[in-house]
């Protein structure tokens, strides 16, 4: 079986092949000493190759988070052959290998090309991998499938001649559902696909100057999406700040001009443009849509009685069903999230053996399709409910049955000081400490949906601004400290968290979080009132005191 996803044609294969030949030549020049590391740096960055604290890191693009079982097996093979037997799934729905050797990167890229993948535009000041809803094409609350549009944007943005040297990196996210699982309001451009066209949000972002995107257009027809994006990018390319790297993202330009003036400039640019030259024809959009039909859904009758009996007999399975499945557009199917957040292990990591199992279960139960979520988990978008128990048992055998999706231990965490040369503080060990504190399944289930997001520095790769509880690592005179933010959220009611209380040393953070959570449990009006609801009802200040040890 092969997954229903975009498949390369000769043009796409030729593009990746040409790019890989070019990069292999650049690596050869570096290895022979023909060029220095300084000269090589911008070249390798255009190919997703970073030099981190200890080794080269290769970031592989997973376009809009969609993977086939075949591609997942290739990741497993690369992890085994060229890395330390594991890989790290990122908040950009990509995959990073943290320990690759420079001399072997051309070979890795060759292997990736065999499964229609590459590492292009995963770094540098260009348009990055477009991200989207991990349940695209499956979710019950979806009104438009974002994947064909994400593919359209992927191609348009590949090697774009005008937008490869932008003031700063540029990230686009698309959702097509009622619930926003793609965090579109905290992206440079956020798109909400609706039957009547796109709502276009511009100027959202995190980092040192967090802001929520402004809606500058509604009802934009899909056939005009590319020309409108081109107009948005041209205004940014011409007028975005280039004098200060921290003020170079589009959010700063939009704030300086005001959203209305930015919109006016975009519309003027758009009106002047020869749109037919930029917009792909309807035939191409139809071609892209044709790659994303529903799978041939298994026709087997769903035995509800057996399903419920299995849950009664196996409480852990029942808990997993409750926490790790999402409503599917078909009653007899579910979308399954495989949590990569087991207690005490680095969030988002998967071993080669686990990757192989995920590929195997995707073939056996999931129409060969997988997704990466921006929460750093893996999704099987379509699973027949009659297969859930067997799926669960196979996942459980390789420690992939952690039943914590959306719960307090399902944290987004940047790599932090353990890997990253920018970080001020460690993130992963802190996440491990917190997850150990809330290890008790009963407690975690009682707390319910609560998102903790941790960044090891102000660049906010761990999305701390939009965590219900955000944690930011800072360096205070050589000592790692953590600031706590409360009240952020990245969904359709997006809001930025606010720094609350004084900074805490690492060892004090888990207990502080626990006091906040205990207070929430005391204050909530019912089991259904989530942490974020209580917080918004009673106000952030109510929780400020709980962050600090009672005197």
């Amino acid at each position: 079986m092969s997954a229903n996803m975009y498949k390369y044609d000769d043009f796409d294969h030729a593009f990746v092949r040409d790019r890989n030949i070019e990069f292999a030549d650049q690596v050869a020049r570096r290895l022979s000493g023909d060029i220095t590391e300084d000269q090589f740096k911008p070249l390798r960055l255009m190919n997703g190759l970073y030099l981190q604290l200890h080794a080269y890191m290769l970031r592989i693009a997973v376009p809009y988070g969609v993977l086939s079982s075949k591609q997942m097996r290739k990741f497993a093979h690369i992890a085994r052959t060229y890395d330390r037997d594991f890989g790290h799934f990122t908040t950009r729905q990509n995959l990073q290998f943290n320990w690759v050797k420079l001399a072997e990167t051309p070979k890795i890229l060759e292997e990736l090309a065999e499964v229609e993948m590459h590492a292009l535009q995963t770094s540098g000041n260009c348009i990055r991998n477009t991200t989207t809803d991990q349940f695209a094409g499956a979710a019950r609350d979806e009104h438009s499938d974002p994947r064909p549009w994400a593919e359209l944007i992927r191609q348009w943005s590949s090697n774009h001649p005008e937008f490869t040297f932008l003031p700063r990196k540029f990230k686009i996210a698309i959702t097509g559902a009622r619930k926003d699982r793609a965090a579109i309001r905290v992206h440079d451009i956020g798109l909400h696909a609706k039957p009547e066209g796109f709502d276009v949000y511009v100027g959202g972002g995190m980092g040192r100057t967090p802001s929520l995107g402004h809606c500058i257009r509604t009802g934009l027809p899909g056939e005009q999406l590319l020309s409108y994006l081109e107009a948005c990018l041209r205004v940014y390319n011409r007028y975005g700040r280039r004098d200060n790297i921290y003020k170079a993202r589009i959010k700063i330009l939009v704030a300086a001009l005001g959203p209305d003036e930015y919109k006016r400039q975009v519309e003027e640019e758009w009106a002047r443009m020869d749109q037919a030259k930029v917009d792909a024809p309807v035939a191409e959009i139809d071609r892209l849509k044709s790659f994303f039909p529903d799978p041939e859904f298994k026709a087997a009758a769903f035995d509800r009685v057996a399903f419920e009996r299995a849950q009664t007999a196996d409480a852990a399975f029942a808990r997993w069903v409750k926490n790790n499945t999402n409503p599917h557009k078909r009653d007899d199917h579910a979308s399954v999230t495989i949590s990569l957040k087991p207690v005490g292990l680095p969030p988002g990591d998967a071993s080669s053996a686990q990757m192989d199992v995920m590929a195997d279960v995707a073939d056996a139960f999931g129409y060969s399709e997988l997704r990466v979520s921006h929460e750093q988990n893996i999704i099987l978008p379509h699973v027949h409910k009659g297969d859930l128990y067997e799926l669960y048992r196979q996942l459980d055998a390789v420690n992939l049955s952690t039943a914590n999706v959306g719960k307090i231990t399902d944290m987004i965490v940047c790599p932090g000081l353990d890997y990253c040369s920018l970080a001020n503080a460690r993130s992963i060990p802190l996440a491990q400490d917190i997850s150990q504190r809330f290890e008790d399944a009963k407690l975690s289930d009682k707390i319910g949906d609560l998102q903790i997001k941790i960044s090891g520095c102000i660049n906010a790769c761990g999305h701390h601004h939009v965590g219900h509880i955000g944690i930011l690592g800072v360096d205070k005179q050589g000592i790692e400290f953590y600031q706590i933010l409360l009240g952020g959220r990245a969904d359709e009611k997006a809001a930025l968290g606010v720094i609350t209380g004084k900074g805490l040393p690492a060892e004090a953070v888990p207990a502080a979080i626990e006091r906040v959570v205990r207070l929430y449990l005391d204050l909530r009006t019912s089991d259904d009132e989530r942490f974020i609801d209580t917080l918004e009802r009673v106000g952030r200040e109510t929780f400020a005191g709980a962050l600090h040890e009672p005197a």
Partner: protein
Amino acid sequence: MSQPNSTHTPQLVTRDGAVIPDGWTLLADDDTTGADGPFILGFERALRELDGRNGHYGVRVMPGDDVRLLEPFLEKIALIEVAFPGYRDGRGYSTARILREDFGYTGIIRAVGDVLRDQLFYMLRCGFDEFLVKDKDPSQAITSAAQRFTTFYQGAADANRPAWAKRHTLA
């Protein structure tokens, strides 16, 4: 992007790979040379003076200059030098596309400044036709940039057709 050859003396090369002499002179803003000739004016000076001048001039456009202000004078402009003070500054790519695609400007567009072989592919696509490039073999740099890719995913200012156009060639 790479600067392996950036210590080389810049040479002027055309999009066809021919190394040519530079027949133009950049005038200082206070240079009062009045004659019509192959002179390049600074952007502000061009805006001030081109209205009252006859002949064919060159204009130097810096990254922060709004090239759209030149529209009324395009008939008097035979050469536009787009400056790249640093290779990371990508504003010049938009400048060239506006000239070619919005205005239909057919004169020469020349890239000057920190022009390195790794940028040439993008510049060719945006409508540049001369390059003051720092490279030990500028001619080879241009040829290899022009041949590097066979797939293009967007329409731009060059003749290459995007993949979507090739996929749906009208019968």
